């Protein structure tokens, strides 16, 4: 047989993963219902309550956190934890659902899209949301006066990196999962402790020396440290490189394994 007739030849010129990205964008645009309002409101409330409120106490009793006001210390970690949260929320239930319950990823796999395109399309959509949310958070943090360097303009990139560092392995996990039971366990025993103990609310020096390595292996710790460095402009190049390397490695491993996992799940 000759090639396909003209009516099925590519006309729009989008690559296959971009079409999957567009699908996720449409679903979000049609169903977001107020989540954007929440994305703006939440950081305001949080920074008022914790940054200004608790910050007042800190200023009275302790003074500063390593030379910074408590608000300056806290605000960047809020951006990083939100990116982690987004990268997790978007990657577990929605992906398992699209594979197992509503089966829309199977529908996509019956079109020219390959399972790898479905994976990359999803991850790139989560990245888009991570970047967009981080832009909003950076602006809010700026309004509170907690940005002290032009490096703060890289905060959205830090947020995007943290988002995919969580999303890539978690989408992979969801693509292999048979049920959502373990997801709840993950939230209880990984997400929540990381949120509380990744030097989010006080510096890692507050821990006994023996516990510090435990904090420093938490992925979120590296995101928080990066965000803090970007907001203040104070950091050592070596430390920055290490934090970026950890998050990039999580992303790369996630992408390599996730593409394979999605193929196995959708095609067999």
């Amino acid at each position, binding site marked *: *047989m000759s090639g*396909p*007739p003209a*009516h*099925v030849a*590519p*006309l*729009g*010129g*989008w690559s*296959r993963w971009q*079409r*999957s990205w*567009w*699908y996720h964008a*449409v*679903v979000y645009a*049609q*169903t977001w219902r107020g989540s954007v309002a929440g994305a703006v409101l939440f950081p305001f409330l949080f920074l008022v309550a914790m940054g200004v409120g608790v910050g007042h106490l800190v200023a009275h009793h302790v003074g500063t956190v390593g030379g910074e006001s408590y608000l300056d210390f806290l605000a960047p970690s809020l951006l990083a934890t939100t990116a982690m949260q987004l990268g997790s929320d978007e990657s577990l239930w929605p992906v398992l659902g699209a594979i197992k319950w*509503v*089966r*829309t990823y*199977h*529908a*996509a*796999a*019956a*079109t*020219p*899209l*390959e399972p790898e395109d479905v994976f990359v399309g999803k991850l790139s959509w989560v990245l888009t949301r991570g970047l967009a949310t981080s832009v909003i958070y950076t602006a809010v943090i700026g309004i509170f006066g907690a940005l002290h360097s032009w490096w703060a303009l890289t905060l959205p990139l830090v947020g995007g990196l943290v988002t995919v560092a969580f999303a890539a392995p978690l989408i992979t996990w969801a693509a292999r999962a048979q049920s959502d039971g373990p997801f709840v366990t993950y939230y209880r025993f990984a997400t929540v402790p990381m949120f509380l103990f990744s030097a989010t609310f006080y510096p890692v020096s507050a821990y006994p020396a023996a516990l510090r390595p435990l904090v420093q292996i938490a992925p979120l710790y590296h995101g928080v440290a990066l965000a803090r460095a970007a907001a203040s402009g104070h950091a050592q190049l070596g430390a920055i490189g290490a934090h970026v390397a950890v998050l990039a490695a999580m992303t790369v491993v996630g992408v390599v394994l996730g593409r394979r996992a999605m193929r196995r799940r*959708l*095609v*067999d």
Partner: protein
Amino acid sequence: MSERGEGEAAVVVARGLTKRFGDFVAVRGIDVTVRAGESFGFLGPNGAGKTSTMRMVSAVSRPSGGELTIFGLDPRTRGPEIRARLGVVPQEDTLELELSVRWNLEIFGRYFDLPRALIRQRTQDLLEFVQLADRADSRVDDLSGGMRRRLTIARALINQPEILILDEPTTGLDPQARHLVWDRLYRLKREGVTLIITTHYMDEAEQLCDRLVVMDHGTIVAAGTPRELIDAHATREVVELRFDDDEGDLNTLRDGGRVARLGDLAERVEVLPDRVLLYVDDGDVVLSAVHGAGIVPASALVRRSSLEDVFLRLTGRTLVE
């Protein structure tokens, strides 16, 4: 296999096609040829290997063995290209429930990289074709099962496929909804679309399929036109007898020797849990003879043989249990 469409190009050719899942063999080396413009059926009970076959023919699942070409192309290496020319109606609707009918079609059109203006135009035409034009802006969640099925068919047509693959297209639909789906499929066939259908409904296979294969335990146990299969594997007519007293019980029937007596009257006797089937050439004559032999069923029915009888003959089982 059959004389029909012999001159047409083969669009799907399978030789020794096999699918394994670990130790389990779902499809055991089947040979199938589907020609352009025909309507081809895979008939069999649940678990016969129909869906596994369909997923391979859809260029989604990779064959574990044997040869398969679709449009003359190898699905192992040319999957996206092949799938661009197929429409697939899966067993479950897999629609985006929170989106409108229109957006469901738009998303799919974009999967095929069609320009949005073209998608809009086809959406209009397709929704009219499946009688959903007035529901274009309804959420899929609010549609009935029959409407969702029709939307899934419309979605599969957004790329104007050369082959439409339907896995159990009318399972779970009420009779009116089934007939509407069948009618739309006839029209597509008249327009030259090749249809590949799986079903466990005999009437569906007889209505829709030019040729079909009967599958059981991953193999093809018979192939031909519906008429050929009935001629080869069943008699012209069937007498169905029901016994609603204790005597209707299978064992009493056997003990009473009535099966043996009925066996003298028919070419073949099938005893099912709820009825006894006599395979005969002339049903009315045999029914009189049954009464003449002093056997009094609670009810009796003479009908033409169907694919159901073929399946029972070939596998010893009914299709819908």
